[in-house]
């Protein structure tokens, strides 16, 4: 496989051609914050936390959806990027109704942990208090849209791994919301196999097991990657 070389934060890195900048950054031993990215799913660049500065480009680019190119010079941890990332996570908190105190995912929530990682001690943006619904129509799981950050990990894990494509994002701007089936109650969507992978992939407490109460959600987000590996195994030879 062809290799190419680029510089990330002053460090020379050799990566296979076709790698994303996120993969290249990880190969360089550097960590980029991500919320919408989940190994094993198609990257979408939704959360904007992995934005990086590429020399010669005026716009910042999400590392997850940008291809690493020969000779690129990339900065991942400038003061500007740190400030923008912190603003992004503050906006997540201000945009939805996130109350860690009694959230099902508290202690295992990637948004809550990201706020710590990025040094958020408060949100400088006014809380919006959007009116959002809770869908408890499914027998095993519930969706609390108040806690949804529209990362679309559930959409992708359901479409790409389970092949059911129950979830989609409807609407525009601040009216964006997660919908099941043809905007139906989740429990009425025949396509849902009740596999629960969306719950495991959800970074917050938006999707959760009905049995779980405050701080009882313990998801397994890397399951998507493990399942992808199983998908990608060569077909078993005939006995």
């Amino acid at each position, binding site marked *: 496989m062809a290799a190419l070389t680029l510089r990330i934060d002053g460090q020379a890195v050799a990566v296979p051609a076709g790698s994303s900048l996120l993969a290249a950054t990880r190969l360089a031993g550097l960590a980029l914050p991500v919320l919408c990215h989940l190994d094993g799913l198609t990257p979408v660049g939704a959360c904007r936390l992995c934005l990086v500065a590429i020399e010669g480009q005026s716009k910042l680019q999400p590392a997850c959806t940008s291809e690493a190119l020969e000779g690129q010079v990339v900065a991942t941890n400038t003061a500007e990027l740190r400030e923008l990332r912190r603003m992004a996570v503050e906006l997540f908190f201000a945009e939805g109704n996130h*109350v*860690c*105190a009694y959230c099902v995912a508290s202690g295992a929530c990637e948004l*809550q942990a990201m706020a*710590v990682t990025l*040094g958020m*001690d*408060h949100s400088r943006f006014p*809380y919006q208090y959007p*009116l959002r619904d809770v869908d408890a129509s499914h027998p095993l799981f519930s969706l609390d849209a108040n806690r949804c950050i529209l990362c679309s990990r559930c959409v992708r894990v359901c479409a790409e791994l389970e092949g059911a494509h129950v979830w989609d994002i409807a609407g525009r701007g601040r009216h964006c919301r997660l919908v099941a089936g043809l905007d139906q109650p989740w429990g009425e969507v025949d396509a849902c196999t009740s596999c629960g992978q969306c719950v495991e992939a959800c970074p917050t407490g938006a999707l959760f097991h009905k049995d779980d109460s405050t701080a009882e959600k313990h998801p397994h987000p890397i399951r998507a990657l493990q399942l992808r590996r199983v998908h990608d195994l060569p077909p078993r030879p005939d006995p």
Partner: protein
Amino acid sequence: MTPAPAPDATAAAEATASPDATATSDALAATGSTAAAAPPRLRLATAWLAGCSGCHMSFLDLDELLFVLAERVELVYSPVASDIKTYPEAVDICLVEGAVANTANLELALQLRARTALVISFGDCAVTANVPGLRNLLNREGRGGAAAVLQRSYVDLADGSGRHPHAPGLVPELLDQVWPLHAVIPVDLYLPGCPPSAERIAATLLPLLEGQRPIQAGPAMLRFG
């Protein structure tokens, strides 16, 4: 762990009384003994706005550190440790629990800001409006205000005999919107948590007693909830 040599009798007695004292209390005992030498005690206040008092309960969870704190600060105003009703002048540090939900909260917030050098947003309700702020969902898109909250609480959910409470001058009027503290006054330091643990409170107050800004980083200091 061997406690630092303590010149004054109190600290020495404390050290012998609790040989298994934590590192934090050792540090506090040490700072307590050096401070006994000279500097004036800081004037500390704690205030309780729209919150459940859980943050104050956590403050009381400082346990034996409270004795050390009592040597280092003068507690000039606090719902859990003093009967003084008027917020005093020239306060050095104030821990403010709770969101700003009614006219009394707002009045006290403005008053304590004017009279305090360092205001600390103490706990998730002060920092984010948290649970008290959930009633903002009834103030739909800025319409409805406090009347919608009273309608929901006293009439819609009542058993038929409900009516709007009306006692002007007796209880403070609700604000249309519940605000985090920093939305109504400038805040100097944020201490999140629901409630912040006693360890987190100690790790905030101890550096301040030494005139240093605490390091607000990592899950032990910053995690909400």
